[in-house]
C-alpha cells in the first residue's frame, strides 16, 4: 500500500475576538475534505499560533478574525513564521475583512482571504489546489 501524506492544517483564532462558529464550521469542512485539522481555540497570540503550528507540523494556518484586528494579527503570524524559518507554511485568513484591506494583507504574505458568503466548497478546493503536504 503506498503511503500518501495527509494534509494537516491548523485553524486558529488570534486576538480577543470570541466568536468561533465560523472557525468551527471551516474545521468541519476541512475534516470532511480529508484533512487533519488542529484547532487551537480562542484568544491566541500570534506567537502561540506559530509555535503550535511548528509543533504540529501543519501545511497551512487558517486564521479567523471578526473583530477588526486582522491588519495587525495576520501579518504578525506571517512574520513570525519567517523568523522561525517556517515560511513554507501557507497562511490564509477569513472573517469580516473590509475590501480595502485585502490587497495589503496579500502583500504582507497572506496567500488568500475568504470573506463572508464564500461557499465552503470554494475554500476547500482552494486549499486542495494551493496547499500540498510539504
Amino acid at each position, binding site marked *: *500500500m*503506498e*503511503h*500518501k*501524506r*495527509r494534509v*494537516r492544517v491548523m485553524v486558529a483564532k488570534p486576538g480577543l475576538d470570541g466568536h468561533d462558529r465560523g472557525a468551527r464550521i471551516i*474545521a*468541519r469542512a*476541512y*475534516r*470532511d*475534505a*480529508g*484533512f*487533519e*485539522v*488542529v*484547532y*487551537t*481555540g480562542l484568544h*491566541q497570540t500570534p*506567537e*502561540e499560533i506559530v*509555535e*503550535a503550528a*511548528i*509543533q*504540529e*507540523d501543519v501545511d497551512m494556518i487558517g486564521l479567523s478574525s471578526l473583530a477588526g484586528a486582522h491588519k495587525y494579527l495576520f501579518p504578525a503570524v506571517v512574520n513570525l513564521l519567517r523568523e*522561525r*524559518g*517556517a515560511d513554507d507554511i501557507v497562511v490564509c485568513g477569513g472573517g469580516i475583512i473590509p475590501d480595502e484591506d485585502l490587497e495589503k494583507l496579500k502583500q504582507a504574505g497572506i496567500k488568500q482571504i475568504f470573506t463572508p458568503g464564500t461557499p465552503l466548497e470554494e475554500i476547500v478546493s482552494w486549499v486542495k489546489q494551493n496547499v500540498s*503536504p510539504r
Partner: protein
Amino acid sequence: MVMNNLAEKVVAGDVRSVARLIRDIDDGITEVREVLKDLYPHTGNAYVVGITGSPGVGKSTLVDQMVAHLRKRGKSVGVLAVDPTSPFSGGAILGDRVRMQRHSMDQGVFIRSLATRGHFGGLTQSTRSAIDVLDAMGKDYILVETVGVGQDEVDVVKSAHTTVIVVVPGMGDDIQAIKAGILEVGDIFLINKSDREGTDKTLSDLRLMIEMDQKKYDQGGWKPPILKVEAVFDKGVAQFIDEIDRHARYLVDSGKGLHFRSNPERVRQELAEMVKGRLIEEVLNSLTGTGAFDRAVESVTQGSTDPYTACDDLVLPTIKRSRE
C-alpha cells in the same frame, strides 16, 4: 548522512526536526526507520503515562493540569494527544490542544496531536515510535492521551509505565469499561468531575472491581488506587502525580524495572507487531507494484471471480516465493 543529521537535531531538542520526524512516522515514510535506529540509543529515559477514558470525561483538561504540575516540579513534558480519524473522509478534527494551549510557549513542553488513521502498522506502532522520538528529545515525562474505545487505543496506553483510567460519575461507566476490557489495564483510576452526584456509587463500584484481585495484592502486586479529582479546578491533581511517582517506585522496587525493552514479554509483543506491519506493507507494496492487486479488484467487481479466490491468488504465490 542526512539521516544522521536529523537524528542529531532531534537529540539536540530541535522542535522543527522532532515535529517533522513524527509527521514522517505518521505518514509511513520508510526512511524514518534509519533515523529511529540512530535514535534508539538515546531512548529509555522518559517516564511514559497513558491516559484513557470515554469521550468527554476530561482527559485533555487533566493532561493540561498534569503538565502544569510536572513543570512546577522541574520536569520537561511531551504530550501525544490522539483523536479519532473520521472513517468516512479520512480527515480528523484534533481538538485536544485547545485545553493545553497555555503551554505552547513553554520550551519545556512539546504537544503533538495525532489522528488514529488506521494505516498499516497501526496506531500502536506509530505512537510508540513517536514516544521514542520525544524520549530521545530528552523529555522527562511523556503523556499519551487516547479515547479508550478500541483495541488499538488500549494497546497504546498499555505500553506506558503507568496507565490511568479516567471515569466520571453517573455514566454507568464502570460496566461500560468492564465490557471494553480497559479496567484490567489500569494502574490508577481517577473519578473526574467528582463534585457531581454519583461519585460515591462510582467509587464503590470501582473498589469492588479492584478488590476482586485481592489475592494478587497480598502477594505483592500493585493495588490500583482510586482518586477523586476535579481537573478543571485543579483539585486532586497534585496527589495524582504523587501516585504516579509511587507507581514508578513500585515498578523499580518490584524488579519490573522502567526499561520497556528489557521486558521479554513486552519486546515479544512489540516485535511481533512490527513484523506483522512490515510484512503486510511489503507484500501489499509488491502486489500493488505489479498491478496484481488492482487486477484482482477488477475481477471481483466485474464478477469474474469471488473475493476468496482472488485472495488465494494474491497470497499463495507470495508465500510460495518466500518459502523458496
